Each structure stands twice: as structure tokens, then as C-alpha cells.
């Protein structure tokens, strides 16, 4: 009896975790697989087996889906393009031993702890094409201003700006910790050799920070692909479908139109692709 528990103990330790994880992931997976081969539509009470037609629809002639993909990639690309450099810049700014350092850092963490649904709707208010304060500020400074969330061309930008506001501190904090961990010796020898601040940055700081920057980028990439809350909060995917990334598209077809069958198929493919991309990115990041 004693021997038995000793032998199985490691497995027992992990068991509760596995029960939850497998229970809540495998079952939905199979479930989605099942429904993805049907054309279930909860409103029409349809539910027939239609083989892989859903998948073919996806691959062949669903412009809304491919548009959604493009929007997701644009969103992710835009976010990374802003958040990484800005985050690095802020980290560099905060790396000096100035007074109030702790308070600055504390304030910087605030956007990260607030609910997107709450502050997101505040941004919706700020972005309002008539009464919004953002429009007021930008038109005062630049003379003219886009209608932000009401403008199909600018709606996506609005969300990128929001996401940048909320998540750049995350990048900044990670990179700041990295900067603080850098050894001072290379900088000291560089100073002796007469290097400028810019040269030091380019040839010492940047190369050493590359792995960490990569890691932060991977985290942000994974998270931006998942983003949903802010879109609902700020634009509801609109105007039209201008800010409908893949996440939001799935929501629309699954919960507004209740095309459970098709939604399941898209979900599976989406899931698979995200996991593959993320795993590859993580492995590459680990190698960096």
C-alpha cells in the first residue's frame, strides 16, 4: 500500500490540474469538431451533417473571413510597431536613477490592472465624433481631426491607440527590468573609448536586449491575436466591419447569427493557427 502511493504520487499531484485542463479543453475541442461538420444554426433549428463543407467554405469563397484575418494581422502588426519601440523608449527614460522612480513605476502599472470593458467604454466616449475630448484635443492641435471610431479608415487606428495605451507599460516594465540587469562594465569601457550615447545604445544596449525584446514581442503578438474585449467596448466591430478582427468575427457569427456549425469550424482553424504561430514564435524567441 505504501509502495503504491509512493509510485503514483507524482501523477496524483498533477491530476487535479489535468482534470481541469483536459476536461475544459478536450471536451470543447471534440465538441467543436463535431459541430464543425454540421450546419447547425440555432435560430433556424437546422442541424445536418454536411461533411467538410464548412472548411471548404472557409478556404474557397468567404471574403468576410479573409478580411477578418487581414484585419487581425493589421491590428497585431500595428500594435507591435508602436508598443515595442515606445516600450523601449519609456524603459530607457525610466532607467535613470531619478527621484520618484518608484511612483513613476507604480503609475505605469495602472493601465494594466483596469478592466478593458470599463476603460474601453470610456475611450469610446473620448473618441466620440461630436463630444469626444480626443477629437477636441486633436482638432485644437492639428486644426483638423478624423472622426476616429466613426470613420472606417480610422477606427482600427483608434483601437490600436487604445491597446498601445494599455499595454505599452507591460513592454516598458519588462524591458526596464532587463535594462536594470545589464552589467555596467561594457558601458564604462565604451566611455573610456569615447563612444557617444547613441553609439552605446546601438552597439551595447540593443544587442543585449534583443532576446528580451523578442520575448515581449511574442507575448504581445499572442495577446493581440486574442483581443476581443476592447473591440466590443469601443466599436462593436464597426463601423460596418472595419474593426472586426477574427476574434470579433467569430463572435458575430457564433452569437449574433448563431451559425454554430460554421463558427465551430472557424474556431478550430483559428485555434490551431494561433497555437502554431505562438509555439513557433516562442521557440524562436527562446533560441534568440
Amino acid at each position, binding site marked *: 500500500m505504501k509502495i503504491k502511493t509512493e509510485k503514483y504520487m507524482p501523477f496524483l499531484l*498533477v491530476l487535479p490540474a489535468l482534470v481541469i485542463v483536459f476536461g475544459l*479543453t478536450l471536451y470543447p475541442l471534440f465538441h467543436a469538431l463535431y459541430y464543425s461538420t454540421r450546419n447547425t444554426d440555432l435560430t433556424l433549428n437546422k442541424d445536418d451533417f454536411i461533411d467538410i463543407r464548412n472548411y471548404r467554405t472557409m478556404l474557397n469563397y468567404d471574403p468576410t473571413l479573409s478580411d477578418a484575418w487581414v484585419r487581425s494581422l493589421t491590428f497585431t502588426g500595428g500594435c507591435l510597431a508602436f508598443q515595442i519601440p515606445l516600450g523601449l523608449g519609456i524603459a530607457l527614460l525610466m532607467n535613470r536613477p531619478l527621484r520618484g522612480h518608484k511612483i513613476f513605476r507604480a503609475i505605469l502599472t495602472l493601465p494594466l490592472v483596469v478592466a478593458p*470593458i*470599463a476603460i474601453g467604454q470610456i475611450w469610446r466616449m473620448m473618441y466620440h465624433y461630436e463630444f469626444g475630448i480626443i477629437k477636441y484635443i486633436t482638432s485644437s492641435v492639428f486644426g483638423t481631426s478624423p472622426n476616429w471610431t466613426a470613420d472606417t479608415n480610422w477606427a482600427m487606428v483608434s483601437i490600436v491607440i487604445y491597446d498601445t495605451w494599455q499595454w505599452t507599460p507591460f513592454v516598458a516594465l519588462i524591458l526596464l527590468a532587463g535594462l536594470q540587469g545589464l552589467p555596467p562594465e561594457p558601458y564604462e569601457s565604451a566611455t573610456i573609448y569615447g563612444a557617444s550615447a547613441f553609439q552605446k545604445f546601438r552597439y551595447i544596449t540593443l544587442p543585449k536586449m534583443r532576446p528580451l525584446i523578442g520575448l515581449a514581442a511574442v507575448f504581445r503578438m499572442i495577446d493581440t491575436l486574442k483581443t476581443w474585449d476592447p473591440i466590443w467596448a469601443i466599436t462593436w466591430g464597426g463601423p460596418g466591419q472595419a474593426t472586426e478582427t477574427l476574434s470579433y468575427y467569430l463572435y458575430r457569427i457564433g452569437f449574433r447569427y448563431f451559425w454554430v456549425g460554421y463558427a*465551430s469550424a472557424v474556431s478550430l482553424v483559428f485555434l490551431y493557427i494561433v497555437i502554431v504561430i505562438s509555439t513557433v514564435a516562442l521557440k524562436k524567441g527562446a533560441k534568440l
Partner: protein
Amino acid sequence: MNVLRIGIKTKRKIVDVLYYIGIIIVLIVVLFPFLWMFLTSIKKESDILTIPPKIFFEPTLDNYIFVFERPAPNIINGLMNSLIIVGSVIALTIPISMLAAYGFTRFNVGGGHLQFYILTVRMFPPIAAIVPYFVIFRNLGLLDNHLSIITLNTLFNMPFTIWLVAGFLREIPQDLEEAAMIDGATRFEAFREINLPLIAPALAVAAIFAAIFTWNEFLFAFILTRSEAITVTRIMAGFYTERGILWGPLSAAATLCTVPMFILALIIQKYIVRGLTFGAVR
């Protein structure tokens, strides 16, 4: 010689001032939306939708009164539910993850593959899983029920928690538990008396992140709750009426939703930073 030295000192000072200005600008940008949120929450309805936006006005508590007196959904309900859910999620996540992390690091259960599978959960876009979850919970009769939200949030907090605790455990040499066991402890006692105190900071960080994530979670709450298990985030979505969006009460509710997290963040500031940067910087 003298001129040179003064030059460098002043240059230093100027650069410092520039840095300060830069940081202040960043902080203003960071804090502005919160400020606006709070201001709007104490504005009269007529002061909110104005062109140009008003900065000076007569404050009022009307919005808060509205929010508190609203029969359904009631924000007190929402706050209570959120609190219960957060507490339950932490109570579930921490022990389960802790044990799993111990199993993974000391015994290498599953040879890394199980750990990887759990890690992929973090990459899961919740929206991709929400369709099946909705159907499953509907069939189980668990819609609008605390249990479904609690289990889902536990699921999504586990990868980070396990990763964090496992990282900490790996730093603790196995010698310590083994010495304790040779000296008379069972493995369980060794874990409780030796490992546990040493991973306590990791557990604290994990609990905090789980609390924040769960409190702020919207998607699952939105789709899977209605009135019984309604969370404060779902209440945030309930300010749309035929007349349009009730900005005032919305801001009030947003402030109420945000303040607890603010306080939490400022108190355990140190731990948040540690948690965010852990593992990223080794």
C-alpha cells in the same frame, strides 16, 4: 579647466530635466483616461455631452446614485458576485497549480509534454472556445451560474500560475526537501515546511494576477451570465438604452469597477512588477 567642469555638470542637469519632462508626459498620457472617467462620473448629464468638453462644472453624485439604485442589474450584486468569483478562483487555482508545479519540477511528470499542453491554454483565444463552452454549459444547465465562470477563469489562470511556481521551485535545490525527509519528514511535511515558505512570494504574485485577470474578465461573463451570477464587468455592458449610452452612470460604474484594482495595484506594486518581469529576466 574650470569651464569644462561646469559645462558637464550643467549638461547633466539639462538631460535630467529632459528625462523628467519625458516621464511626466508619459504619465499624463497614462493617467488622462482615468481622470476623464472620474470627472465624467461626477458630471451632470447636461455637462457630459457638450462641445467643447467641459473641464469646470458643478460636481454631482447623481450618476452614482443612479447606479446604486438601479434594480437590475444592480451593481452591489455585481460587486458581490465578482468578489465571490475572484475568491473562489484564487482558492482553486493556487493549490491545484502549486501541486502540479511540484509534480512537474520534481518528478517531471509527462516529460514536458503535459506542461506544454497546459502552456498552450494560455495561447487559446477565449473567443474560439466560447461557442463550445456556451453549448456545453447550456446543456449542463450551468448558464448564469457561478460555477461555470469560476472553472473557466481557473482554467485560464493556471498556465501562468504553474509557470511562475515551477520557475520558483526550480530555483530551490532538492537538497532541502531531501534533508528534511532524512531528518524525519514525510514528503508532504517537507513540502509544507520547507518549500511552501520559500515559494510564498510566487504564490502571492500568482494570486494577485489571478485576481486582476478574473475581476476584469468580460467575455465569459458576458456570454455565460445574465442575472444570477452577473459580474461587475457584465454590468459595465448594461448601459445601453434606447436613448443611447448612459455615459454618466457608465463612468460611475467604471470608476467603481476600477477603484478596487487601483488600490490593489498600488499596495502590492512590488509584486506586480516582479510577476510581470519574472522569467523574462533571469
